[in-house]
């Protein structure tokens, strides 16, 4: 276990989101970005591995320059290196186009043992990027992992599926998405926060990654928005106002009337 790569994502702070009226994609430049909360699991897991195996942790994000504070946050949690994948050509990427960029950047970091990501992002919520990136790298992927340990060239993971909790032996290197429910998440280290202020990430463009334009961004995304529309709201129903006690009584009467208590 020499190197662990963590992919993180900046998501718009709830309430600061603006949507491009033409492309219907998020205007990430305008939004205030926060670290995708589920990525904290991937970072925490990586730091636990670092504590145990003394491995190097490299953190990668794809996004506009305003994602730099997120990388610094990852540094203050214990990451050793920061990489920002940033290029106008990346804008509007769907999960395939995103995975292409990540896979290339990860591939350039060989040799590595593990790639960790959050289960999903709280904005898109697709959960597709970890397995899709793994697929492009030709690596195994395991999703919703809650424990990781290393035995030689294999990693032993525990994951929760819809049916069971499984202990799985996986060949290294592998891509894992981590459960959002860990028992503890460390806060940033104050010392590393002070250091991080003065550090800048390595910034890589499409050209640096030798990726052709037609595979990137909106152009390179096979899923396209056809149209966007507002869902019609049905006619307004009845409105009751009053004290909670009063409303509770009326509601109970209504429920009785509807024979809700008899089912």
């Amino acid at each position, binding site marked *: 276990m020499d190197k662990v790569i963590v992919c993180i994502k900046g998501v718009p702070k709830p309430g600061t989101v603006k949507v491009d009226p033409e492309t219907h994609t998020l205007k990430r430049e305008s939004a205030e970005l926060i670290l995708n909360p589920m990525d904290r699991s991937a970072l925490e897991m990586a730091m636990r591995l670092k504590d145990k195996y003394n491995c190097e942790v490299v953190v990668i994000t794809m996004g506009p320059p305003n994602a730099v504070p997120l990388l610094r946050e990852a540094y203050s949690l214990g990451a050793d290196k920061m990489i920002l994948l940033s290029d106008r050509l990346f804008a509007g990427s769907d999960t395939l186009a995103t995975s292409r960029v990540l896979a290339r950047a990860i591939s350039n970091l060989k040799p590595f043992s593990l790639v960790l990501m959050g289960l999903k992002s709280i904005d898109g919520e697709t959960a597709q990027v970890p397995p899709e990136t793994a697929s492009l790298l030709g690596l195994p992927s395991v999703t919703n992992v809650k424990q990781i340990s290393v035995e030689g060239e294999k990693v032993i993971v525990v994951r929760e599926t819809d049916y069971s909790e499984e202990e799985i032996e996986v060949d290294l290197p592998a891509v894992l998405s981590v459960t959002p429910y860990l028992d*503890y*998440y*460390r*806060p*940033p*280290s*104050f*010392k590393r*926060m*002070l250091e991080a202020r003065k550090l800048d990430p390595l910034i890589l463009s499409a050209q640096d990654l030798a990726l052709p334009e037609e595979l990137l961004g909106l152009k390179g995304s096979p899923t396209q928005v056809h149209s966007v529309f507002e869902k019609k709201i049905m006619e307004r129903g009845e409105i009751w106002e009053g004290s909670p006690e009063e409303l509770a009584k009326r509601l109970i009467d209504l429920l009785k009337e509807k024979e809700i208590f008899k089912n």
Partner: protein
Amino acid sequence: MTLHSFTEEQGLLIDLVKRIGEEYIAPYALEWDEKEQYDPLPMRALADADLFGIIVPKEYGGLGMGVFEMALAVEYLSYYCAGVSTTFAASFLGAYPIILFGNKEQKEKYLPEIAKGKKLLAFALTEPQAGSDAFAIKTTAKREGDFYILNGVKQWITNGGIADLYVVIALTDPTKGPRGASAFIVERGDPGFSFGKKERKLGLKASVTTDLIFNDCKIPKDRLLSKEGMGFMVALKTLDYARCGAGAQALGIAQAAIDVSIKHAKRRIQFGQPVYQFQAVSHTFAEMAMRLEASRALVYSVAKYIDSGAKDFSGASAMAKCFATDQAMWICERAIQMMGGYGYMRDYPVQKYFRDVKCLQIYEGTNEIQKNIIARELAKLYK
């Protein structure tokens, strides 16, 4: 209405403490209080955040910051739970003697682990018959070859049982009275060292208080801090440094009490308007805010005075502790009154602030003892 400006580092420190408060303390504080439960979670987070290292010199892996930064951390932590900040601040009380009086070997042995938060500390002076009258302690430490043998009981020790290291004041030469006292580092697990039951308290319920029992407790002689006979010197100097911490706790609790009660007063409608509109109410808040800001100004200025390298600051630190805690007690009492019945209910946090803040007028030297110190220092100015 904060009237103070901070350096960039201090600003980051405050933000980090707030973050720890929001994430690791706020969701649980009422539950810990209700269940009288010590949860190591916030200590683990504070350790991971390097915050046990605030006052530890950089060469021992600490942050090398001063009393002011320690006070800021304690103030903002107390805003979320004074029980938690008591555990944290009591650990500093145990760390100061080692930082101020430890020899090179002792510092190298203990400070790196203290800075990392791997060792929690406690400071033990009080005994059943020696509260405000600290010189009346009876615990003895008898030299036997390369060891000291401790016998006696320390009472109401914060972090008793959960701390890893205890700085204990004991008599090496009972014939010499206060000049016969010495300070020792005792480790949990030392033979003959045990703990009394967990005390049941009015407030600060998230912290642990027990007796320490020394029954032929045998420790190596290199655990002696400074020299024999210096025990009270160590203790008093430590308390001089730590008093700003108690003052800072008062600031955090009082701020929380004001925040909660003023929000309530602005929303609570009686006689057709928010109660804040009544002058009796709004003037009370004005008074609460004035008293808090006056306390804050005093605590901050004393902390900065100590950090500037002042030699003699017993009186100043006693003023900071006594004034800020007295004002906070008044503010918390008023906060309950401003909320009426809501303030008295255990679903709301103000009653907790009121119970927590009371202890601050008592521990780390009662406010009456603080006034003795102030009066003594004052007298020196008018010889």
